[in-house]
């Protein structure tokens, strides 16, 4: 790949940037831990899609039952 090509320069921007990070390493570590907690723990174990679990494919019917029977 030519060093003056746009693709290489974009790659180099990110590669060089990530390699020379100092504070950024800590921040990325925090972001990754946070994303794991949010998506792999909270979403999976505590925040299921309620309608998908209860409506059995008939979301409109389920919500109608919920809303109209007050």
């Amino acid at each position, binding site marked *: 790949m030519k060093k003056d090509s746009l693709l290489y*320069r974009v790659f*180099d*921007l*990110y590669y*060089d*940037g*990530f390699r020379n990070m100092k*504070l*950024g390493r*800590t*921040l*990325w570590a*925090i*972001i990754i831990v*946070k*994303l794991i*907690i*949010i998506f792999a723990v*909270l*979403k999976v174990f*505590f*925040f*299921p*899609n*309620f*309608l998908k679990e*209860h409506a059995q494919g008939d*979301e*409109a019917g389920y*919500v*109608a*039952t*919920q*809303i*109209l*029977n*007050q």
Partner: protein
Amino acid sequence: MTNILLNIDAGTIDWSRAQFALTAIYHWLFVPLTLGLAVIMGIMETCYYRTKDDFWKTTAKFWQKLFGINFAMGVATGIILEFEFGTNWSNYSWFVGDIFGAPLAVEGIVAFFMESTFVAVMFFGWKKVSPGFHLASTWLTGLGATISAWWILVANAWMQYPVGCEFNPDTMRNEMVSFAEVALSPFAVSKFCHTVTSAWIIGGIFCVGVSCWYLMKRRETKMALESLKIGAWVGLVAAVLAAATGHKSAQDVAEVQPMKLAAMEALYDGGTGQGLKIIEGIEVPYALSFMATNDFNGYVPGINDLLNGYTTPDGKTEPSIDEKMERGQQAIEALAAYRKAKAEGADEATLSSLLATLNDNMKYFGYGYIKDKEQAVPPIAVNFWAFRIMVGMGCLFILYFALLLVISYKIPFLTIFTRRLLATIGLLPETEADGYDITRLPDWHYWLAIALIPLGYIASESGWLVAEFGRQPWTIQDMLPTWVAVSDLKAGSVALTFLLFLILFTTMLAVEINIMLKQIQKGPEFKS
């Protein structure tokens, strides 16, 4: 038919609301600083671009670093709100249909592509791209974050003023009929302008506070002085703009959420020429009428007027809550009958007749769930005091930034006059009355600036308290109250996730403050 909703524990509603409030408040600790620091660092880098002075480059890098810490800590905190919609507020999520999804999807795409691209250029590209391209990337990072805020606020504004949609009784969803009406709703425009300008105030306060810490420590004096001036200018301009946009927001509220305005003012019996309460018993004559209608003699309904119905001096009639409740019940019954008739294969004429009844009363659909008039009144004390905290702090910030700028510059006559005035009332030492130096002020001046940082957040969060408590009991104004929007969950499971969030958020906040303080303590990296 089983009455499922009667089984929902009242605790589920309260815990779900508390959890949403906790998440939103926490998310809003990061967003305003991101939007505010985006302007600050953009101005710093613009100074570098114009002067080519390395001082400005290092200064810009320092503020970008603080922006980066806050940005990293705030990443994905908003996603949890979307989880909560799907789990805790499933009836609401289905009922709003694609109206809520479209702005949030646009926000996700814009946030991801725009911010991730330009943030990378801003942090990694100092030696890789031209100064002009780098400067553009810095401003575009801020613009990306601001556009993200636009779409989130469009979604929020729709809940307060549902426009551009039609309810489909077959799918039980609101369907978007005009994207432009939703995206450019006047309520959304006002909300966006007011929210973003208030976020710039936080940026200004933060910049001034950090600069004052350096001045107190007799460190980085040049950077602190220049940053202080920029922070104060941003703060002053933003605070004045926030006041102007707040006036427009108040008029929107008066028009589409009059109960919220009445609660903000604890106004029970309205009328023309209404005064604005400073606190109970002290009021500015005619100011509330002007704030709500742009007319000193404009009509502002009170809580009792809204409950009992009223007619304005120009003949506009608003029905009573009883009438709205009756029409809401008619809408609910018509919807239930329509769905039953459709399932049983009824003829077109029957279906059309039921649809006509539904459409005629759909405006008051949510009132059909109200059993007691008092349910339609939002919590008054919270609205009253949160509004006063927000406005009071806003006025304080305007005064503070204006004074700070006057004493920071050498403005003929005005600077010395102000300094002598401050010395006379004991706010400046006599020895500083005739000088221009703000690096030798007593420490309490700098502590005051630092103390304004949490006060800025309190003001900002108070604004959201008014916006969200004021629209109770509605998740969607006049359409869906909270107790219908909530999922049929056990209160205990929502309480558990509430506590989990509390621990997680507190830890994250402590980590952010710790990293931020360490970087401030370390300071900018000027070449010797």
